[in-house]
């Protein structure tokens, strides 16, 4: 059992999502970064789609009510406090055994989102084939809502002997997001399309699991078509442009259909990156072909498999931590002075 002591920012349980119900208006949902979810689960000794906690910006404090193994995928600044009040750093991209009454303080997240998986998975009921939280309709997770202080979640297994680490954590590329021209590309002038591919966009404050509204250039609709369509299907990665010309990129919790013209779609291989986008971050787009998108999908799948295959026993934890503690700061200063 894990008890939530506090949860300052929205955090929700997510797994591989809820496919098969979009014709009923039920969104796909699921982890914004399915790759990192898979890594968190691999580090916790779980199958890739096991439900984990998706954390945004500032993570919760969690108390182990019984021994539990927890794994972190993401750039947390975490520490573990024991019952006597002693604190130790909890490094990222590895599993950690928590003894009874130990507290994991996950802290700030430099990676925007991160995942906390527990060995054995969180014991939550399946709703329409998934444990993913979809708050708007109260589906999945804990009563379909965000995590909050006082929640207690049962854990499926308590093998505290598990210790795994990821020697080469994944990095998020800064290259432009790859897109395929959208179903309603013809609704936009050629000038708007050129602008879309050349301009810089900024993620606005209107950003959540449903989508990201972008600031920057306004994309003009072709007056012969206008800015409304008879609603049809959208998908995570869809970039729709309402009448005000400000694009919206849809994410995992997006509705199933929409009435705005869709200028382009972010390719599947780049979807995980969108989950990490923070307000103020700049985005660029580049057009690719379907063939390039499929090649990118295969490459992303191969890289994830390779990353997970590199997971090693965590017995080096002590030495690594000692090394870092002793040398890291001096090393950085030396390196700066050398330049």
């Amino acid at each position: 059992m894990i008890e939530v002591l506090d949860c300052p920012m929205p955090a929700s349980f997510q797994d591989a999502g809820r496919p098969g119900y979009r014709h009923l208006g039920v969104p796909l949902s699921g982890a914004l970064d399915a790759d990192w979810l898979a890594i968190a689960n691999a580090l916790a000794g779980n199958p890739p789609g096991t439900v984990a906690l998706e954390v945004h910006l500032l993570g919760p404090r969690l108390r182990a009510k019984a021994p539990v193994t927890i794994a972190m995928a993401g750039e947390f600044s975490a520490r573990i406090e024991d019952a006597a009040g002693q604190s130790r750093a909890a490094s990222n991209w590895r599993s950690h055994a928590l003894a009874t009454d130990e507290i994991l303080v996950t802290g700030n997240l430099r990676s925007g989102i991160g995942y906390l998986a527990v060995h054995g998975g969180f014991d939550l009921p399946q709703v329409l084939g998934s444990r993913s939280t979809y708050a708007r309709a109260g589906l999945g997770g804990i009563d379909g809502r965000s995590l909050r202080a006082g929640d207690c979640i049962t854990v499926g297994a308590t093998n505290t002997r598990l210790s795994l680490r990821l020697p080469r954590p994944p990095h998020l590329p800064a290259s432009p997001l790859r897109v395929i021209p959208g179903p309603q590309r013809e609704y936009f002038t050629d000038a708007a399309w050129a602008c879309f591919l050349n301009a810089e966009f900024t993620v606005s404050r209107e950003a959540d699991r449903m989508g990201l509204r972008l600031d920057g250039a306004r994309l003009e609709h072709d007056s012969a078509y206008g800015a409304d369509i008879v609603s049809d299907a959208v998908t995570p990665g869809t970039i729709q442009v309402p009448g005000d010309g400000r694009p919206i990129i849809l994410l995992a919790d997006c509705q199933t259909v929409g009435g705005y013209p869709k200028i382009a779609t972010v390719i599947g291989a780049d979807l995980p990156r969108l989950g990490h986008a923070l307000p103020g971050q700049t985005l660029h787009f580049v057009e690719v072909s379907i063939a390039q998108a499929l090649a990118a999908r295969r490459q992303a799948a191969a890289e994830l498999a390779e990353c997970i295959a590199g997971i090693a026993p965590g017995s080096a934890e002590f030495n690594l931590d000692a090394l870092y503690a002793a040398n890291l700061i001096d090393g950085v200063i030396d390196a700066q002075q050398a330049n």
Partner: protein
Amino acid sequence: MNPRILALGDGALTLEFGDRIDPALNARVMAARDALAALKLDGISDVVPTYRSLTVHFDPLRLDREILTARLLEAAQAPAKESALATRWRIPVVFGGEYGPDLAEVARATGRSEAAVIEALCASELRVFLIGFLPGFPYLGELPEWLRLPRLATPRAAVPANSLAIAGAQAAVYPWQSPGGWHLLGRTPVRLFDLGDAARPALLAPGDTVRFAPAGRDEFLRLAADVEAGKIGRQEWQAK
């Protein structure tokens, strides 16, 4: 317009029949859906029919995009027919007052009485064109020409669950509290999405028809209490 295939990214294809709200187009969409389902292709996760198009969400590493494209264009040739599974529903609604705060304004804007608005809405056998936007949310149509109004200039932050609303040629019932820009005319005791019915969590399906029936406030409250208590099953709402 001939049916055509549109790319919705690398993981979805949209078979588009047209760009209008039209029962004939919608019937072709449903026929194509049935024809595609009969093929039982591996690698498809979702098939979403809308007013005028059919979108297939698939795993392009398991299902070849060219093969799916060809199958979709074949399915597009399936003759339109009304689904044998279509159901006729009768949905009670309490109109006006606290339950339908926009009824008076809709009557004023259309130059008719509130009673005439209610009567016209309830006289129409409305088609379920698609389920989307929210779990179980039905897009119903089409309304009489004179009852078609633009959306609210300023959408409401919170439309109460079970509200009956209209906009343009469409009517809908909100299964959940949500933001919304449609005109609210009334409230129904009927649950449009119910996880208790795992085989069919959404009450309505595309191709079904709906007729709204005026209910008094007392009847509405009694029905709502019975639904809450589990005394009324969904078959209660099927048209006799």
